[in-house]
């Protein structure tokens, strides 16, 4: 052991000591950071921001606002916007630069209209969240909004920068409008009113609104109770994906008031009698989980105390798995399924009776039965207590044959015998040689049950097939479409690999609700007699970027959710 060795040993001890000290300091710093994160003494909400559970703009949204739409500019999904746009552009026109061009046009228009450049005047200070809310609105007798009070809240990360922006805006409006720029103060916040817009900064939020009164409501919400504190909002939004780009919310009370006011052929139904009266609110969101997928979620929050027994049963049914996909063939191109036609009818029936009275309701049902030979209130809808499904599939017969398509409705029942009796009586009545509606031909379904084909001289090209079999009421555009149903479950949609793979993109536990094979429909239309028309139809051509659209649902005691995913064509 020489001197060099001792020096090395001494240097090693110092190095170890330094390492220990550095480690200890790092640990203390980490601990301090953790404490800061948990206690959040500066109100940064860092953890909640990362989890997608905090929205700064919401702080200024009054609790009883009708509508809220907010954008999280730092959502991980935002980074995919350009990529998704490139995917869409490549699949449609091949021009991925359209988005850039759109941005440029918006920028030019803003400079012209209000003297503001997004790039130069807004980007330098804008923070993570932007929120727009309709604070209040009234509707005219045609359901159109009037007297809309709105509020836009934008988070700032640079108060000085945002104040400069507001000053520039005020100066521009003052010069342009020759006029009435009014400045006032509320709760220590300077508010500027110019023509039909008011603005100011309260804390870390830049607010713009339809009036200073609206801004004052926003400031009050910041200091008191905002929409984010309401049970309906919390319940609905908690079910939405955390990394969403856009969050929306519709207030249930306001929705019911609007539904009650909107003109319909039905008599006015008071908000408390609407089937939606138990809705506290509906949250919705938009996210981009992958470059070839756009996801839209909606969650309806119910007030459990207002839910009727029928509504609770419908929620339970929604949560149950679906089986009708095993009835439809694997080449099915559109499929929608649900449960509880009987319950849904019962809800609507009760709402109607509460408003118009039982006598008037029953008289209208009697008139329907007299006119169309079927009492759907007593002899049809109450029997449809199972799962139902609507499918569109390839077919060369029936009303949709020009497009190479056929349509089928299958509605499940637990009382096939009664349903068969109803349908047989209906068929006998409409097929009467004297005074009937047309000709009805009955035959047996291969799988069991009776199918009726209806034709009428009044509409020579019209065909309708319907019947009862295998615990389903069946309705189709042709008998062959009904015969294509897979009562044995073989080669069915449910067994198709593509169908099964599609649901892997959905959260666990969700039950398939619908899907549309857009690519398949496009291909079929291109090969059909309608090919020339389809090629020039803007709706059809604009769908060329989409391969499939699918939706799945999930329900709990007080919430119902639906997730829809648009699958883009990737080239």
């Amino acid at each position, binding site marked *: 052991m020489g001197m060099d060795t001792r020096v090395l040993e001494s240097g090693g001890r110092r190095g170890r000591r330094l390492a220990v000290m550095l480690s200890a300091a790092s640990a203390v710093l980490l601990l301090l950071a953790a404490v800061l994160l948990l206690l959040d003494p500066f109100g940064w909400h860092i953890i909640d921001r990362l989890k997608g559970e905090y929205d700064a703009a919401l702080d200024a949204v009054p609790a009883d606002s009708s509508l809220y739409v907010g954008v999280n500019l730092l959502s991980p999904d935002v980074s995919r916007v350009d990529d998704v746009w490139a995917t869409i552009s490549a699949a449609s026109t091949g021009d991925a630069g359209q988005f850039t061009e759109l941005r440029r046009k918006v920028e030019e228009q803003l400079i012209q209209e209000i003297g503001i450049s997004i790039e130069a005047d807004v980007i330098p200070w804008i923070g993570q969240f932007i929120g727009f809310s309709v604070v209040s609105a009234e509707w005219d007798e045609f359901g159109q909004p009037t007297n809309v009070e709105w509020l836009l809240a934008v988070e700032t990360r640079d108060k000085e920068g945002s104040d400069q922006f507001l000053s520039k805006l005020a100066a521009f409006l003052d010069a342009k409008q020759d006029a009435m720029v009014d400045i006032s103060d509320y709760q220590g916040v300077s508010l500027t009113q110019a023509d039909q817009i008011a603005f100011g900064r309260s804390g870390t939020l830049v607010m713009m609104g339809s009036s200073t009164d609206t801004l004052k409501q926003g400031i009050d919400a910041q200091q008191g109770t905002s929409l984010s504190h309401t049970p309906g909002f919390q319940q609905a939004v908690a079910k939405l994906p955390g990394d969403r780009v856009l969050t929306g919310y519709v207030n249930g009370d306001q929705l019911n008031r609007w539904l009650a006011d909107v003109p319909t052929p039905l008599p006015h139904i008071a908000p408390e009698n609407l089937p939606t009266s138990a809705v506290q609110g509906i949250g919705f969101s938009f996210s981009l989980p992958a470059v070839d997928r756009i996801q839209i979620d909606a969650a309806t929050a119910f007030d459990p105390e207002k839910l009727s027994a029928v509504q609770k049963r419908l929620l339970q049914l929604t949560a149950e798995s679906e089986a009708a996909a095993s009835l439809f063939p694997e080449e099915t191109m559109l499929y929608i399924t649900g449960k509880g036609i009987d319950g849904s009818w019962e809800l609507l029936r009760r709402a109607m009776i509460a408003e118009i009275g039982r006598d008037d309701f029953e*008289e209208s049902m009697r008139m329907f039965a007299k006119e169309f030979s079927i009492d759907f209130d007593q002899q049809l809808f109450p029997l449809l207590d199972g799962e139902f499904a609507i499918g569109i599939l390839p077919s060369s017969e029936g009303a949709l044959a020009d497009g190479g398509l056929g349509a089928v409705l299958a509605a499940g029942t637990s009382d096939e015998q009664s349903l068969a009796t109803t349908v047989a009586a209906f068929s006998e009545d409409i097929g009467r040689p004297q005074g009937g509606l047309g000709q009805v031909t009955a035959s047996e379904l291969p799988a069991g049950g009776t199918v009726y084909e209806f034709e009428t001289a009044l509409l020579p090209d019209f065909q309708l097939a319907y019947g009862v079999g295998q615990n389903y009421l069946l309705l189709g555009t042709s008998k062959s479409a009904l015969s294509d149903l897979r009562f044995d479950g073989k080669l069915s949609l449910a067994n198709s690999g593509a169908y099964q793979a599609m649901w892997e993109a959905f959260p666990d536990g969700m039950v398939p609700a619908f899907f549309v094979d857009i690519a398949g429909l496009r291909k079929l239309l291109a090969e059909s007699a309608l090919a020339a028309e389809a090629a020039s139809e803007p709706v059809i051509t604009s769908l060329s970027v989409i391969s499939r659209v699918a939706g799945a649902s999930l329900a709990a005691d007080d919430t119902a959710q639906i997730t829809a995913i648009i699958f883009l064509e990737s080239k």
Partner: protein
Amino acid sequence: MRMRHIVRLFIASLLLFTISCREQPLADLPAETILERAITRMTSVSGFHFMIDRSGAPAYLDAAETLSFRQAEGDYVTPDRARAVVRIIAPGLVTDVSVVSVGAIQWETNVLTGQWEELPPDWGFNPTVLFDTQLGLPAILTSDLSNLVRVESQKLDDSGLLMYQLSADVAGERLYQMSGGLIGPGPVTATMWIAPETFELHRILVVEPVAGSEESSIWQVDFGEFDLQLEIEPPTIK
């Protein structure tokens, strides 16, 4: 002794109170006089609120029997303006439409859109015809009644006022014209409730037997807010 006086006084007071609280019988007028005064009042009134309610067998607005009149509630002001909300029952559908009539022109809200539309001449239900001097109630009450009798006076549900009650048979032809075919042309029976003092007609109840139906159509027409002052203007059409 003194106690007996007090008891007598109490009983006398009670009797006086009971007598004073008893309903005064209505003046003993013949049915024809009551009706005549009611018609006079009806033709002099400047406006009123009305409610027409049909129950029992349906009354169809069309020959195909797909639209049934149920109810109309509205206001009438002389000489020829009326507005009403009319309930119509169709197969599987109960709907309310609003109606405004100014002279011969009539507007109605579209069942699907709720927007006001001017109706072609002689279409729809025009409430002003109810009060037409040639075709309406004044003419029917003057000329078409038979077997008019006064029956026991009665209070109406919503009024504490004891009213004259008259009953009569009514020829149905003019009624048929007035109602656009909803009532008549066969004979019907009618009961009328008329207020004493003012001789305002508060209610007419018409019972119409319906051929081929076990139940009759029952029409109850209520009037109120007599001499109503109201501006009824043509609706704004978007």
